[in-house]
């Protein structure tokens, strides 16, 4: 399939943010082209999803397909922080639909395939190299080449949605990507076969029971890695994802090669008593360790004439409450709404992107307040975050508050509620 020379909206990146934005815009009747540098299915991290995910799946019309895949349904989270175990059961907060543990290669491929079935043109193996935006109403030019080739080409559109993930293409190009220097961390994760898992009542179960007895996501802090090193245990259908969030300073000077990371990873897993117990009957899958140097960052400007930033391209936070994918989906919904409105009423394009940016910035700030132990933000960001908390229903507010208590980081969220 040839990539057309023009369309209404180009979406850069086919992960959950891009796939949903493409779906919503296609369903509103716009000609959408999705470009992704990789070929799906591709692996990525972020396997734990909170029940809010269904709202967006419903809106995108993809719920049936997600259900049919038979992902592991999870009942809640068990959070062990400084030796104290707390339970967050979604049911206790009135949620009737389950949260999920998903293999991201399958989950993301379903969403992207769905975007195609809703009318979006999806082109994989295409790397975007540059985006040229001009004023409101001016065409946007997106320059691309087949991944691994030098053959440049371009497509013209009315809007571009940057859902390029941590590449944060537009923000880097504009120099508006702000690293959170205080929170430079990396993820090191791998997979175990036949590991035990915890149900929401704290009982231990074997890997074979995972589709019968709903698991909980287990997270625990890593005591000697400052106050924000932590570890996750996510039971999947065929294996268990175990990952560490580690301050970059803690691994300073370590040799940057797979063997060293693997050694460090396995040693850390063995040192956390409850985790080690769960992993004891299982076996580490050799070579499965991966690392991402995910620094916490935000893009200063979330939208401008002709462009919108969503998902990790808009910002990346400590992933402790599994909100990354849902935040990405929310950005996709908001951007698709704002772009659709702007295409209908071009003279109000600035109004719509301000609505999008305020809503997303506020939501990102709430997540940031929940995730970070020490926390400061601008007066404007704080006001937007307070507005978002007020606009949240009582049930979700109660869950956020309980989550902030579980990790001994309640002060940030309490300040937003005040």
């Amino acid at each position, binding site marked *: 399939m040839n990539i057309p020379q023009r369309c209404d909206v180009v979406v850069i990146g086919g992960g959950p943010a891009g796939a949903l934005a493409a779906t919503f815009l296609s369903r509103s009747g716009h000609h959408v082209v999705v470009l992704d540098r990789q070929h799906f299915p591709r692996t990525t991290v972020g396997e734990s999803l909170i029940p809010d995910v269904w*709202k967006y799946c419903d*809106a995108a019309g993809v719920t049936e397909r997600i259900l049919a895949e038979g992902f592991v349904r999870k009942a809640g989270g068990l959070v062990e922080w400084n030796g104290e175990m707390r339970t967050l059961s979604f049911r206790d907060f009135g949620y009737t639909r389950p949260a999920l543990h998903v293999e991201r290669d399958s989950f993301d491929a379903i969403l992207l395939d769905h975007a195609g079935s809703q009318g979006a043109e999806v082109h994989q193996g295409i790397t975007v190299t540059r985006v040229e935006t001009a004023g409101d109403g001016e065409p946007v030019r997106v320059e691309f080449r087949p991944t691994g080739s030098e053959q440049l080409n371009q497509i013209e559109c009315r809007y571009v949605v940057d859902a390029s993930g941590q590449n944060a293409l537009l923000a880097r190009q504009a120099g508006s990507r702000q690293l959170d220097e205080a929170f430079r961390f990396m993820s090191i994760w791998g997979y175990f076969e036949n590991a035990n898992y915890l149900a929401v009542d704290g009982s231990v179960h074997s890997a074979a029971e995972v589709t019968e007895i709903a698991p909980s996501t287990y997270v625990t802090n890593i005591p000697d890695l400052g106050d924000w090193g932590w570890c996750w245990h996510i039971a999947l259908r065929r294996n268990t994802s175990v990952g560490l969030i580690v301050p970059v300073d803690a691994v300073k000077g370590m040799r940057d090669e797979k063997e060293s990371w693997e050694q460090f990873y396995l040693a850390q897993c063995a040192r956390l008593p409850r985790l080690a117990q769960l992993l004891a009957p299982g076996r580490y899958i050799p070579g499965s360790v991966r690392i991402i140097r995910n620094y916490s960052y935000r893009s200063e400007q979330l939208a401008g004439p002709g462009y919108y930033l969503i998902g990790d391209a808009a910002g990346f936070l400590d992933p402790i409450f599994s909100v990354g994918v849902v935040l990405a989906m*929310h950005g996709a919904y908001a951007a698709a709404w704002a772009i659709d409105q702007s295409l209908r009423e071009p003279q109000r394009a600035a109004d719509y992107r301000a*609505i999008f940016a*305020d*809503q997303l910035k506020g939501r990102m700030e709430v997540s940031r307040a929940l995730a970070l132990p020490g926390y400061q933000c601008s007066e404007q960001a704080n006001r937007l975050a307070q507005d978002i908390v*007020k*606009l*949240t229903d*009582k049930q979700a507010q109660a869950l956020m508050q309980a989550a902030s208590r579980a990790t001994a980081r309640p002060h940030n969220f309490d300040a937003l509620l005040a």
Partner: protein
Amino acid sequence: MTAITDPVADYIRTELAPQSQGLELTPDYPLIQAGLVDSLGLFRLVTFLQDRFGIKIRAQEIVFDHFATLAAIEALVVAKQQSSEEAP
């Protein structure tokens, strides 16, 4: 109920929150806190209010105080209609 709250209540019941079909949406029913207008519904409600009442809603107006109840939404719509009449 009024010429503003009636169609808004209808829109919420039929489009945004089918689970509220049987509820009596009084002017002070907590739409946001009870989850009838959620983070997605809010965007759709803005579109509905603009199209139906010919008003322009701006970013800084999308806050709890303007959307908490039918009465609050009515007050916003009335204020917007008056300010646009006065505009040149």
